[in-house]
């Protein structure tokens, strides 16, 4: 194998590794965000009024910040991330 071909192969492997790392990070961003929301919900259950809905007004039942975080993570994972991964690969 000539040095040029070996060098090119090495470069390709490096590029492939770099792309793989980026793909992994992009795929992990959404789930990590969702996990952060779940952990927050467990740590501060009083921020989820759906767990104790009696006597709560509309806005309090509508506003569930930990669930918003989970939802953002899921949306990112299933709406934005697949296209990016496809384009990278």
């Amino acid at each position, binding site marked *: 194998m000539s040095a040029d071909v070996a060098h090119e192969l090495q470069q390709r492997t490096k590029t492939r590794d770099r792309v793989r790392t*980026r793909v992994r*990070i*992009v795929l992990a*961003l*959404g789930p990590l*965000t969702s996990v952060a929301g779940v952990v927050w919900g467990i740590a*501060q259950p*009083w921020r989820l009024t759906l767990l104790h809905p009696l006597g*709560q*007004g*509309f*806005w309090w*039942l*509508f*506003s569930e*910040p930990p669930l*918003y*975080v989970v939802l*953002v993570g899921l*949306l*990112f994972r299933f709406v*934005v*991330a697949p*296209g*990016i991964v496809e*384009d*990278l690969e």
Partner: protein
Amino acid sequence: MTLALIPPAEMVHWWFATGFLIIGLLLLTEAIVGHEAWVRRPWRKYLWPSFLFGMGVLMWPVMTFFTNSAIHMVAHGTWAQFLMLAGAAELGVARGKLHSQYWRLTSAAAMLVSGTALLVHEQQHWFFARAAFLHHALGWTMVAGAVFPLMQALRPRSLTAATGFASVFVVTAIMLYCDRDSAAIFGHFSQYAGVLHR
């Protein structure tokens, strides 16, 4: 179930936090994969500028309905204008109607104005209550964070600037989610701050 027409201010902060989190994630992804990969699908390049512009539009009802004081109205109105300006400029760049890299300066201006407005319209000291603390912290984060879009205007391919810009949005989202109308901050809570929440 009761339906009060205007939600508590803390909830509006959480909704905007969600917007900031979305923009932060999108910007972070763009920084990770690179601009070329990010704009490979035409709809993707409009994503975060649209959210930024949309948040500017949504700031107007906030200005209209949360009229605690004149300075609040001025601050919210200024945010609305500068968020819309930055969003519109980024949309123009994404569409190809605007070409100069210096349009990113509108984002720097938006952050500088937002930070200043946050600092000016918070009348209480840092440890008055959590909301006061967060307004000061958010204000200084925005003012300091303005350096990242400024860097991007000068060096559009800087990874540090792109990551920093995205991080400012994520940090802002976290701080906005922490906001409560009347809660303690590191054990401090002024007797004039209302009824204590968790």
